[in-house]
């Protein structure tokens, strides 16, 4: 393994061991909470669409809204400052504190303040800064960085926090329980708040019409931070501005549910500073609060720091819609296993973290963790503002690829069958051009398989391509699906429908049996099937951030299928990640009309079978069972498309007893699990699925899975044979 890959693998291994369990428990809890909480909404999708529309509009009109907000804030008696970058913001905040002779600033949680590192600035000016959010305070005491954008200390167990507090503060009685730790922090921080001169908060949203900021919290520290001292400084990104107070409603309903799975957090502070509430001056403890001085000072510091450039960037703009709820972190299988210390950059972590880091810090910081997004797409439906997070990760990967130009690239460029300029790593090029490898592999099978599996080859592959030697390689079949199909006659007289079975690379070259089974199943249900020679979907290069190559595939695939669509043939796809290309990513590559035609005409194979049965096809033509028990793992992108239930329904109708896994992803994710730097993480993620299929209830069930990667991963996780569900139901198996 190369040194940099070994270093990356070692870092991930260490985080899995030290922080993985704590992160896993919390994030999965949040994620399950989200599924439950959103069910209470009458119209979840409608609310998300509203939230999305408000953000789109706000970012579109941002310069005008900022002008309006400035007028409002100034009319209210506060000041607004737009800081160009972190240094500018820090200077302004420091000067406000110095003007007030502040000795102590108390802060409520704010990722934006982490981004600019304002604590360092204030401390270097001899101003004491105290984080009052309990999680942030733990990290301040421990001198560690957040591992999660909402719950910053989730990587620390209760025991670790107790040790930290007992060592640092030496309380009379050692602290142990969560209750004791919390009450200790409440006391300690309560006193520090009482003596604070300035309160600093973030802002989740700011409304241009009234100058109201919304703070989403649960502890009450933000309330105390804003109400006790007479000077309030709020620090937020410019993208937090929305037009009106009423626009807050969908966000307030979505943010807690999406993030930590809470119906709503304990406190939504809607503050229009300077607020009318009296200050609480503990240095004058015996004067009634209503008689004290209530001359409040308020500064809103809005930070650009790259955001206005992101607004002008057609690909990164969507990032600005992010409300920092953390849903994309919690739903992400990789994040669940390593947390933000691996899956994060300078400040931001998780799926959307890539967009933030690319825009705010630069590509280098984003490149650190961008590969941990496998494009599984589970975050796209979890995101309350419908951000296409995998796409942002793909774009950033593409830009990183293009940024890494080395001297040999002109040579590689001339020799590779893709559309990419130099800079793409050999590893990414290999996986991105998998179709080429598969063609060669089948042509020379089985010799190619023997050669590939030899220890000499595996060592070479590991060193040059970073393909982990512990991972079994796919075995290419000499007779491809297309060869097999071409050598036989059509069996259907008077077909009820006509269809194309799309020969994806894996089905055509490796898992040929599932392709044959699909043909048999469709024909048994009265469908006339053809298997044309069509290029691979482009999923493989897209996963490697090779966007131009993927787009080239898209045009070829559409050209290859257009005539069949004109003939009225349905396009049936076995591999869910390829169907997801047709249904989602192709929207970015094809003309609107072409995209719609292909997408509307394409079906996942079991979805198609379901449709045939619903429309009167005879289920007796398929393989029935007397309650055979199966353990089914759907595919991440298939679930995002809402197509998991169709497989379950077909299997149930044919008499199968189905138990379905509920892990977000198997961990394999195409090429991800093959890469030597990620192999161990891939297996760690897979362990969740393994556990679900080894319970008393599931350990002797027949294992079926829809995705190529999932089947490969299950093969390495379990000792039972695996198959695609269509192999189970096809006649004459």
């Amino acid at each position, binding site marked *: 393994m190369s040194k940099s890959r070994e270093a990356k693998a070692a870092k991930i291994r260490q985080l899995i061991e030290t922080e993985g369990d704590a992160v896993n428990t919390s994030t999965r809890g949040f994620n399950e909470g989200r599924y439950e909480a959103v069910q209470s909404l009458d119209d979840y999708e409608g609310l998300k669409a509203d939230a999305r529309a408000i953000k789109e509009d706000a970012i579109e009109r941002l310069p005008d809204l900022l002008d309006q907000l400035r007028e409002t804030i100034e009319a209210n008696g506060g000041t607004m400052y737009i800081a160009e970058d972190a240094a500018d913001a820090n200077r302004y905040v420091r000067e406000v504190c110095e003007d007030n002779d502040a000795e102590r600033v108390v802060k409520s949680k704010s990722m934006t303040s982490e981004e600019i590192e304002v604590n360092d600035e204030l401390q270097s000016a001899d101003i004491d800064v105290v984080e009052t959010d309990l999680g942030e305070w733990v990290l301040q005491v421990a001198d560690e960085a957040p591992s999660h954008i909402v719950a910053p200390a989730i990587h620390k167990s209760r025991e670790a926090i107790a040790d930290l507090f007992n060592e640092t503060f030496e309380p009379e009685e050692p602290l142990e329980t*969560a209750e004791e730790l*919390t009450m200790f922090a409440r006391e300690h921080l309560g006193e520090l708040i009482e003596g604070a001169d300035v309160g600093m908060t973030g802002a989740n949203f700011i409304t241009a019409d009234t100058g109201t900021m919304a703070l989403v919290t649960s502890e009450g520290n933000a*309330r105390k931070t804003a109400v006790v001292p007479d000077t309030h400084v709020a620090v937020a990104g410019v993208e937090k501005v929305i037009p009106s107070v009423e626009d*807050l409603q969908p966000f307030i309903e979505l943010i807690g549910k999406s993030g930590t799975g809470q119906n709503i957090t304990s406190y939504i502070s809607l503050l229009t500073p300077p607020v009318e509430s009296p200050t609480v001056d503990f240095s004058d403890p015996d004067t*009634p609060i209503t008689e004290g001085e209530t001359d409040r000072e308020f500064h809103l510091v809005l930070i650009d720091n790259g955001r206005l450039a992101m607004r002008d960037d057609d690909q990164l703009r969507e990032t600005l819609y992010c409300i920092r709820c953390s849903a994309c972190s919690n739903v992400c299988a990789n994040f669940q296993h390593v947390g933000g210390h691996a899956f994060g950059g300078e400040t931001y972590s998780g799926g959307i973290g890539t967009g933030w880091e690319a825009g705010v810090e630069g590509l280098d910081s984003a490149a650190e963790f961008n590969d941990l997004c496998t494009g599984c797409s589970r975050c796209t439906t979890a995101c309350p503002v419908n951000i296409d997070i995998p796409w942002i990760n793909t774009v950033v990967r593409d830009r990183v690829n293009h940024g890494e130009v080395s001297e040999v690239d002109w040579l590689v460029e001339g020799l590779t069958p893709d559309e990419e300029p130099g800079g793409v790593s050999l590893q990414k090029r290999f996986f991105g051009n998998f179709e080429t490898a598969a063609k060669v592999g089948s042509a020379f099978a089985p010799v190619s398989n023997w050669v590939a599996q030899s220890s000499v080859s595996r060592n070479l592959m590991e060193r040059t391509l970073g393909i982990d030697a512990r991972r079994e390689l796919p075995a290419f079949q000499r007779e491809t699906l297309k060869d097999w199909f071409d050598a036989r006659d059509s069996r259907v007289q008077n077909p009820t429908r006509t269809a194309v079975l799309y020969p994806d690379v894996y089905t055509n070259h490796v898992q040929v049996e599932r392709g044959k089974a699909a043909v048999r199943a469709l024909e048994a249900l009265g469908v006339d099937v053809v298997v044309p020679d069509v290029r691979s979907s482009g999923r493989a290069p897209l996963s490697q951030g090779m966007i131009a190559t993927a787009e080239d595939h898209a045009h070829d695939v559409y050209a290859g299928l257009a005539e069949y669509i004109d003939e009225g043939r349905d396009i049936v796809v076995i591999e869910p990640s390829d169907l997801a290309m047709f249904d989602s990513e192709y929207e970015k590559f094809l003309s609107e009309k072409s995209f719609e035609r292909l997408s509307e005409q394409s079906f996942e194979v079991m979805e198609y079978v379901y449709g045939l049965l619903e429309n009167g096809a005879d289920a007796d033509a398929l393989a029935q069972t007397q309650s055979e028990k199966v353990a089914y793992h759907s595919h991440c992108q298939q679930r995002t498309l809402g197509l998991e239930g169709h497989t379950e329904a077909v299997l149930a109708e044919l008499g199968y007893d189905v138990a379905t896994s509920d892990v977000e992803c198997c961990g394999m994710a195409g090429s991800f699990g093959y890469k030597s730097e990620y192999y161990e993480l891939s297996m760690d993620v897979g362990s969740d699925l393994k556990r679900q299929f080894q319970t008393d209830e599931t350990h002797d069930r027949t294992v079926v899975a829809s995705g190529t990667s999932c089947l490969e991963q299950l093969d390495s996780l379990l000792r039972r044979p695996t198959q695609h569900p269509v192999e189970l139901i096809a006649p004459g198996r």
Partner: protein
Amino acid sequence: MSTGTVATFEDSLERLEVGWTHTSPSELSAVLREVCADPTVGVELPYDGVELPSWVNTDPTPADLRAAKAGVTGVGIAIADYGSVVVQGTPDGTEPVSLFGDLHVAVLRESDIVSDMADAFEWVGEEFRSGHDSAIIATGPSATADMGALVKGAHGPKDVHVVILDE
């Protein structure tokens, strides 16, 4: 507002493990005596003909806030779907009084319960544009899970009790 809304509000409070009492204005003192420990601070209630008993300190100092076991306030509205009370920021100190004690007692009129968040924001919008422009949507007690398990009372009240005045 229908009886359905009140029932929904009560269901939400039940889910939040927040206690509530229905009472009449004349019985309020007795109810407060039952739920509040001494010392109790408060702000005068904004409802006609409804007064706080004299043992509630309605002119608290910072020291009183620090020592308070309970804080009694009125609220703008309550939101049935969520079990939330909307505490308005007022010059007489509703915000700190509702925040510092171990228990927040929120007193509201039955007619102030709105059904859902959309209705709540309609009210918030009108209030804010008319100048009453700060409020806390408070739902259950202060809470944190940052110390390894859910604990009530991180910085704010450890408990909430809602008193619903029948009309």
